[in-house]
């Protein structure tokens, strides 16, 4: 661009160093993800020996095969999909209309609601009082808890409110009202279609937080068939008891035991890919809205 032609010698060095560092940073960010991809399809013995670093070796699908035959993972997958779809819908239904109401200058009581909501950003009852409330509402071991908890937050509301305020011209609202348009019609037929970027961003945010949430399940669910994927992953990746049990149950000879041990290694990598890929695939679909939505939402936020 134009400005580059004024670069001094020092500027050129500066730029070269800048680009070099950026390449290193990008590689550092990408490598762990790349490593998981190649380790999931390589001979686990070679991974252990350090022979698999940049390219897969001794290609195998065993890990993925084992993942798709693992009942816990499949049940977890099903549960997570249910929690994510309904949870995200609820989040949107709770957050967007509230944010829109707060964005309207002619909404009487706007300030009071804003103050009441904002306090929740800076002070909370804490884990146990929250737990007791969930208990009182009979939500322990109830799949609804995974959908309801986190349905909205003041931070999300502020993000959407800022978007509505800064990108919906108030003349539009006035015109619609003069035409006898009710607020609901206005919101559904005019405002929402104009707010695709923020709706896309919020959908992505909400979906990720439901998909990746493990702690709500750890606190409130202990029935195995209700567990979300992340809780199953925790067992596979972090506490390896479940796999150990599987091996014990199958009273096997040493050769098969070794094979199971190798599969166990592969399953770890493959399950990371299988669980993270859906969210990452979602991203390019709404990328064009992503940065735009965050930028508009964060101007004042």
């Amino acid at each position: 661009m134009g400005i580059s032609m004024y670069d001094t010698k020092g500027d050129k060095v500066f730029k070269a160093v800048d680009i070099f560092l950026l390449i290193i940073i990008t590689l550092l960010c990408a490598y762990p993800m790349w490593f998981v991809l190649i380790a999931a399809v390589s001979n686990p013995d070679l991974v252990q020996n350090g022979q698999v670093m940049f390219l897969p070796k001794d290609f195998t699908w065993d890990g993925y095969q084992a993942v798709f035959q693992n009942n816990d993972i499949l049940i977890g997958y099903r549960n997570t999909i249910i929690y994510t779809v309904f949870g995200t819908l609820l989040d949107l239904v709770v957050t967007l209309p509230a944010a829109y109401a707060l964005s309207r200058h002619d909404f009487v009581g706007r300030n009071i609601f804003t103050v009441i909501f904002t306090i929740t950003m800076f002070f909370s009852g804490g884990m146990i009082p929250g737990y007791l409330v969930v208990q009182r509402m009979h939500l322990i071991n109830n799949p609804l808890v995974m959908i309801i908890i986190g349905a909205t937050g003041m931070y999300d509301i502020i993000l959407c409110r800022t978007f509505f305020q800064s990108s919906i011209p108030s003349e539009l609202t006035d015109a619609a009202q003069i035409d006898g348009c009710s607020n609901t019609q206005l919101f559904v037929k005019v405002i929402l279609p104009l707010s695709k970027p923020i709706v896309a961003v919020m959908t992505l945010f909400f979906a990720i937080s439901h998909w990746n949430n493990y702690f709500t399940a750890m606190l409130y669910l202990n029935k195995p068939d209700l567990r979300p994927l992340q809780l199953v992953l925790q067992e596979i990746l972090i506490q390896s008891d479940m796999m150990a049990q599987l091996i014990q149950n199958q009273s096997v000879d040493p050769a098969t035991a070794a094979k199971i041990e190798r599969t166990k290694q592969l399953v770890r990598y493959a399950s990371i890919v299988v669980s993270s890929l859906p969210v990452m695939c979602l991203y390019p679909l709404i990328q064009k809205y992503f940065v735009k939505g965050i930028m508009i939402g964060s101007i004042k936020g």
Partner: protein
Amino acid sequence: MLRKKKSEAPVGAAIAVRHQSSRRKLMKRNWELYLFILPATLYFALFCYWPMYGVIIAFKRYNIGTGILQSPWVHPWYHYFKMFFDSAWFTTTVKNTLVLSLYGFVVSNILPLLLALMVNEVQNMVFKKTVQTITYLPYFISEVVLVGLIDLMFADKGVVNHMVTACGGTATQFLSSDVAFPHLYVWSGEWVGTGYGAIIYFAALSNVNPELYEAAVIDGANRFQRIIHVTMPAVIPTFVMLLILGAGSIMSVSYTKVLLMQTTTNLEVSEVINTYVYKTGILHTQYSLSTAVGLFNNVINLILLIIVNKISKTVSDIALW
């Protein structure tokens, strides 16, 4: 309701009446907006304000059978706080919380800004987009997977050790090392959050008028001077804003991640206040003690936020309220 007080003067009274009736008219015309805000209000009432009321069990000998109201008050009122202050875990958890959060606070505030400034200097759009996309891809990885990834890559026979030995170094037992724990915690967080954190600065940078750069060039400023005098002033308000917000959560380490990273051997450096709250409360069902510890933590956060906001207001005019 808020503005009624202004109507004390006799002249003001007439205006106030008209004002009030127009308010009533507005409320009537916009009745649907109250339905719009109802679900969120209900959510905050049930899951934020009701638990806030529940905080009083920190001052009571809470018993599930008798309930919050019937449970007796403790004497002295700070009984459970004292219990925590006197316990063996007090110093450890407070120290670990401060170490992890201050370390994370410093790094996580500086790196996204640096990344944004570095990317901003690049003119090639394809390179710029590639760097941005790849650096915020890790943001989508869950805590469970992240900690699983740390366990796999930093294991004694993990790929990191293989790389270290390939480069002529000696293998380290990262996962059982007390020294490595804070670094693993903080830098894994950076891996996930830096690219994402930079986005907010790109927003601020996109508002800089390009003519300012041209003017700076004409004045003979080199690249570095342009960053200092043109780019930095554009991002400083955002930076300070994030500092204030971050200061309000100094005491709240991302305990869900710490919990996943804990092993029986690293508790000495990994037990933080909130993991202690989880264990005393959920695992050992000492509800009152756990609530008191959580409250202690929250109140300190609140005080920090108020102090930092006040300082920032007097020094730089940037404040949350």
